[in-house]
């Protein structure tokens, strides 16, 4: 089956992304396709390049990135939710006069419509929140 995930919790502060990552691997292990992960609400923090957990802890962003690399999973981040929370790509940063940015490929800033598209095109959309 085709699966999509909606992730709405921040790494380390909320269990949602950790559960979602575990679920993602189980979905793939059962032979399904994981089409994409949509990050909304506080979930946008999963995309931050500046996330710097202690060395003995998993870097969640790197874990999502590996999932993209190995299984071609799209990593879409809601642009409106991300910008107000300080998660921003290079092009948006320069558009808004910031010198720095903290989101880059394979994460992509997209509109909320992408979530509805993911829900429509997947057989299953599973939400991980808070």
């Amino acid at each position: 089956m085709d699966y999509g995930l909606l992730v709405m919790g921040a790494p380390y502060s909320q269990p949602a992304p950790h559960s979602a990552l575990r679920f993602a691997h189980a979905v793939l292990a059962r032979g399904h396709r994981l089409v994409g992960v949509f990050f909304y609400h506080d979930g946008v923090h999963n995309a931050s390049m500046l996330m710097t957990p202690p060395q003995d802890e998993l870097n969640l962003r790197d874990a999502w990135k590996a999932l993209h690399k190995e299984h071609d999973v799209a990593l879409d981040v809601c642009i409106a939710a991300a910008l107000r929370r300080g998660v921003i790509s290079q092009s948006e940063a320069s558009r808004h006069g910031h010198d720095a940015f903290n989101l880059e490929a394979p994460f992509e800033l997209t509109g909320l419509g992408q979530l509805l598209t993911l829900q429509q095109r997947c057989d299953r959309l599973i939400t991980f929140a808070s």
Partner: protein
Amino acid sequence: MRESEDLLVIIRHAPHDSNWLREGLDAALVGAAFGQSVRLLFMGQGALALCREQQAGAPGQKASLPTIDMLEMYDIDQLNVPQRVLDDLKLPLEALVDGVTPLSERQVKALFSQNRPILNF
């Protein structure tokens, strides 16, 4: 892809307490803009989003009532709230905006259909 009924968006968070309410309403509006028929169900603290006298909050917190008022322009005219939620919160229907339909327990359960896409905020 599967045959689907209208999109059910559930709102369970009150104004000003978080960004859940606003981001939930945004999802409903985008669904409508994408041509989906959208039905809104306000549960728990979410029913407070319908209070007609609410205002803007502390500095930096925008009012959400204008968004509620805007829903009709997007053809989202199904604002449902379980009667039990109004009873639990002791929230009088007169304190809410116009056009809210209270639902019986049976009617609430009927909204949850496996063929209906659901987003829960």
